[in-house]
């Protein structure tokens, strides 16, 4: 009984705030100003405490917020612009940060005034993130960071970076890591573009040369960086694997368009297209089901399969779309122009999408690693032999 009363109150609270937000909405308003008001009204992520962009209610009410804002035609694309911040960083800061840290970082992240990047991978530490070797040494109230990160998406426009580094090389690899937030404008941070097979440089290599980070920018305890990194990766994989799309949208839409545009009628091709459509729809329904269960607090195996399934299927569908184009598929409209995008370029020609999709089974954890995780953590199968788990980090073989 009291539960229902609480629920009714929570819903009334949320609806009231939405009314307030939308009554003051004017389509000519700067989106950043709108997102600022959304944050201040507690509608950024309703489950967070008041004063931090939330109302302290169940996260399930967030979908009402999204739906109403969309229906009003107000801007909702801040998440897309600042995916690494809003999709991953926010969850990490709220789970591991102090109230002061939340106050400092969450609002400008939500409004997209401050862009974020994820400084995890290194030349020697990709799948094996815990092997990272960029290091920080304490100096009074500061830490001095040296080392290199790689494949850092949008580092060239980011204000803040999520940065796990080694602070103790004498203990096993998972234990000697500490997690910082680094100001990308600080002295000694050098961001250089890395061009991808599409010619775009979404990602970068980032060099740290005696970069000073105040101790207030440390998330969680010294040596707790692995735990914080895991929260980040879980958020990332959920963010990638839980995007819910309307039926028939995404890459399958390109395939269907190509089928029609090129007036195909071959039964074998039709069967292949339909097979891909069916797999895509099965994925979509699974994401939908997983999202509902997650919100209801009953996470199941369906919540972990999305990233893996999406990666392999998106690769297959984008390849098929180009196949449907015949000779046109051998062209590359506009040619390859090496450039540095200032936001995620989500789509382009089918040929460009085919190339970009090759990364889906690498970025955010490779499909091999995702399969290991499903096998070991979801299905409970025995782990692979780990030769390095208990060795001090500095003694691990590196080829």
């Amino acid at each position, binding site marked *: 009984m009291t539960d229902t009363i609480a629920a009714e109150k929570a819903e009334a609270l949320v609806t009231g705030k939405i009314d307030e937000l939308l009554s003051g909405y004017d389509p000519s308003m700067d989106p950043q100003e709108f997102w600022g008001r959304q944050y201040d009204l507690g509608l950024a992520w309703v489950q967070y405490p008041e004063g931090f962009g939330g109302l302290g209610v169940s996260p399930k009410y967030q979908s009402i917020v999204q739906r109403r804002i969309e229906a009003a035609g107000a801007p909702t694309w801040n998440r897309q612009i600042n995916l690494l911040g809003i999709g991953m960083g926010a969850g990490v800061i709220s789970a591991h940060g102090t109230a002061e840290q939340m106050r400092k970082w969450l609002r400008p992240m939500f409004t997209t005034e401050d862009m974020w990047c994820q400084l995890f991978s290194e030349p020697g530490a990709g799948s094996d993130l815990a092997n990272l070797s960029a290091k920080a040494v304490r100096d009074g109230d500061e830490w001095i960071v040296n080392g290199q990160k790689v494949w850092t998406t949008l580092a060239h426009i980011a204000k803040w970076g999520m940065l796990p580094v080694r602070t103790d090389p004498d203990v096993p690899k998972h234990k000697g890591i500490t997690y910082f937030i680094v100001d990308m404008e600080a002295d000694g941070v050098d961001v250089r573009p890395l061009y991808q097979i599409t010619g775009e440089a979404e990602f970068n290599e980032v060099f740290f040369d005696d970069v000073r980070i105040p101790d207030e920018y440390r998330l969680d305890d010294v040596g707790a960086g692995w735990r914080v990194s895991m929260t980040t990766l879980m958020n990332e994989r959920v963010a990638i694997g839980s995007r819910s799309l309307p039926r028939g949208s995404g890459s399958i839409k390109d395939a269907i368009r190509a089928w029609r545009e090129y007036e195909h009628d071959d039964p074998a091709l039709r069967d292949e297209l339909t097979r891909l459509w069916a797999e895509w729809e099965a994925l979509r329904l699974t994401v939908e089901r997983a999202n509902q269960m997650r919100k209801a607090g009953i996470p199941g195996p369906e919540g972990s399969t999305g990233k893996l399934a999406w990666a392999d299927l998106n690769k297959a569908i984008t390849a098929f779309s180009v196949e449907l184009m015949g000779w046109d598929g051998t062209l590359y409209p506009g*040619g390859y122009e090496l450039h540095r995008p200032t936001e995620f370029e989500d789509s382009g020609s089918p040929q460009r999408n*085919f*190339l970009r999709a090759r990364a889906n089974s*690498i970025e955010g954890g490779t499909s091999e690693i995702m399969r290991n995780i499903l096998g070991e953590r979801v299905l409970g199968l025995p782990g692979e032999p780990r030769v390095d788990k208990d060795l001090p980090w500095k003694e691990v073989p590196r080829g």
Partner: protein
Amino acid sequence: MADTPRVTFALTEEQEMLRQTTRQFLEDRVSPTVVRELMETETGFDAALWQSGAELGWHSLAIPEEYGGAGYTFAELSVVLEEMGRALFPGPFLSTVVMAANAIVLGGRDSQKKELLPGIAMGESMMTMALFEGPQGATTDDIRMTAAQDGEAWILDGVKKNVLFGHVAGTIVTAARTPNGLSLFLVPADTGGLNAEHVPTLDATRKQANLTFSGVRLGPEALLGNEGTAGPVIDRVLRLASVALSLEQVGGAQWCLETSVEHGQTRFQFGRAIGSFQAIKHRLADMLVSVEHAKSTAYHAARIVDDTDELLVAAPLAKSVCSEAYLRAASDTIQILGGTGFTWEHDTHLYLKRAKSTSLMFGGVRHQRRLLAEALGL
């Protein structure tokens, strides 16, 4: 059905020598840096390199001796094609030496052969064929352009798409419908009314152009052979081009396999070489199987090209099997290399782009399987 012809797969001593000198030359002269430089240009070839290849005898291998060639067979040419695929050789070799030369050998009058083939053999000519007008062009049925007769002259109007090196070739062997069927015309690039426009390609190492014919007027000598007889010639050239691409694909796929295996041995994660993880080891073992299968079909096809009946099976067999093997090898190589494989800087993407575009040329995998089914009476 007749017995499957048995071929000898082993290379002769002479073929082995050819393989070695070709590989050596390509390693010395066609490094990935050179490939990338040419890829950035609009013409995509290097005159000195082209000439050197001819001096090594590549261009003359399969041209009959009486027309200035060396009089070898497609089997010798196939050795060069495979090595070219491995090195991503840039330039109009396929369009000149495999396509145009064979069209002339098969369809030309004796005087035309005498006039044109020695130039190809010596590396003086660059040629291509303008066949298709639309994205699904793969067989002679897809050729729609007509040549109108005006007294002794022929007038060509229309657009030919996806012409390999069409903006570079000096002579464009162009297919058009004439009163008695299909005909091929020898069109010099500087003919009035002909306009070539370079179009950017997925695989930037192999250039293409769209050719617009606006009242292109040709004399009777432009007709290759006799009017209306080009259908079987084009058919055969398409099959030879498919076999040639299969050999290139095999060379490229083998590079992918070697690159992945090396990475599996040298890249360490979790304190182990990644090739020690079964996920990687098994992927590589599967790649080996499919590359070996691809080789068998391509080598078989290269050795039976003169058996017209068997070629009906062997060409689409090779093109479908090799296309899939190459696509998979290139895609898996990116996966095994991880982030590095997705960079512009690493060469794997050049192979992926070759794999994808060669799989689509002259009819994709499904078209090849359709041809195969027809040949098998299925």
